[in-house]
């Protein structure tokens, strides 16, 4: 039982981690909270679903298409809702509001295009359970966990080793210093929001697959969860987002398994509040930089 729940928790947690990494990347380079992330997550879920139901492709192709659409939306989000505000040097609250606007727009667009009803992937689309004795794991979970882990590994290599990844880190540390090294911050910010949104869309497909419920409002609560993970891990910290995601996933599953299924979100968020009492700067944030890594 315990092992089974742990497996379930880690699977869910890996999805939260991918979601929250997107938020933390954007926070890193722009110092803002991207409230449109949940909206892009939701669009990603729909794109994945339609690739599977209409074009009958396999889940990996659907994922790649969803991520590409996510990246395009990310580019538009940055170009329309963030860049003009940055040029005017307005307060950090303005992009918060403009991204909420984008999020509402995306939700309305989904309602218009696909209606309010909940949709799901075709039954038995992915296949059944695999029995390991001590625990069972479904193909859906294996794909969710596997894809998440692969995406996180790729991101880690990109951020640590590649020129563009190092430029993203430099812009996160200081936009001005990055520019003085010859980095074009506008381009790097654009690329970062695109990567983040592609990850958000991937999380959308995987969560849609796991819960098998895709609807226009699904981005809202998941957006809050991403936010909670962002703060729990330490703002702008990628490792923090990963660990925080797993903690939230495990906490949620255990609260369901051991009694309080109707309170799963309350228990999980309550736990996060307790952790933040202990470390207000987040698990991987440092105190003197206001939670930044």
């Amino acid at each position, binding site marked *: 039982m315990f092992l089974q729940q742990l497996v379930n928790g880690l699977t869910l947690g890996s999805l939260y981690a991918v979601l929250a990494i997107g938020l933390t990347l954007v926070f890193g380079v722009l110092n803002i909270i991207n409230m449109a992330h949940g909206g892009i997550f939701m669009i990603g879920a729909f794109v994945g679903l339609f690739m599977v139901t209409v074009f009958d492709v396999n889940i990996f192709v659907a994922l790649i298409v969803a991520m590409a659409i996510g990246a395009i939306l990310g580019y538009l989000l940055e170009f329309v809702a963030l860049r003009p505000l940055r040029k005017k040097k307005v307060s950090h609250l303005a992009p918060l509001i403009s991204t909420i606007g984008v999020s509402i727009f995306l939700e309305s667009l989904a309602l218009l295009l696909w209606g309010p009803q909940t949709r799901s992937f075709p039954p038995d689309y992915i296949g059944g359970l695999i029995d390991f004795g001590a625990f069972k794991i479904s193909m859906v979970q294996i794909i969710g966990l596997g894809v998440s882990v692969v995406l996180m590994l790729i991101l880690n290599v990109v951020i640590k080793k590649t020129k563009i990844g*190092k430029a993203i880190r430099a812009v996160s540390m200081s936009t001005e210093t990055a520019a003085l*090294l*010859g980095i074009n911050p506008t381009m790097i910010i654009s690329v970062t929001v695109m990567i983040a949104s592609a990850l958000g869309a991937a999380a959308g497909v995987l969560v849609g697959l796991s819960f098998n419920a895709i609807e226009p409002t699904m981005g809202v609560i998941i957006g809050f969860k991403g936010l909670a993970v962002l703060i729990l891990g330490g703002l702008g910290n990628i490792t923090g987002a990963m660990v925080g995601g797993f903690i939230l996933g495990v906490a949620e599953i255990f609260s369901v398994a051991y009694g309080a299924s109707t309170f799963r979100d309350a228990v999980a968020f309550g736990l996060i509040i307790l952790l933040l009492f202990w470390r207000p700067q987040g698990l991987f944030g440092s105190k003197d930089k206001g939670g930044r890594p």
Partner: protein
Amino acid sequence: MLKLENIVAGYGHITALKDISLEVPQGSIVSLIGANGAGKSTTMKTIMGLVKPTSGKVLFEGQDITGQKTHQIVHGGISLVPEGRQILQDMSVYENLEMGAYIRNDNEIEADIKKVFKRFPILDERSYQLGGTLSGGQQQMLAIGRALMARPKLLLLDEPSMGLAPLVVNEIFETIKEISAEGTTVLLVEQNVRQALKIADYAYVLETGKMVLSGPADEVRHDPRVMEAYLGGRVE
């Protein structure tokens, strides 16, 4: 090589530079001196495109670079060692140097990093340490090394001696002389007037946003006003 013509610049309603002009000939060391708040750093930021002048021109190798973005100016061949070093705290010494060569695509980057290590052996010892853990003097060396990694034609240094121990200050000024001897043109902003005038060919004195004096460094050094205001009233 670099020419500022009648620059007026500021922040919001404050005008920090009131019609200043300045010239840096190729191969020279030019020192820009002045007290706190005189507008020295603003001058540097204007050259780098971090501050947009309300009027006036910045010319580099005869080209008007006034409207260019910072990263374009770096690509054009000017590098700034910024005030307060601005080391990338969470990157190693080695990575900081690599980032200095961001604009380059040749295969001599590693060789150039070795050259920086030869110039500053302490950086070699610390090459895997995070930039943020270095002492002030080491960070200054790293900042200079990082700027050199871009192979600039013109190197700007903003208060490189600030907050450093006297021995380290001497080392930094020696390095600046070496860099100049190797063929890089240098524009230096300093509060350490004595040292700055000693190594410079030309000097400009900035006071509350206005250029009050300029000329060959030797002449500036013996100007009574400079001696009184910046050198403690004594001739060296």
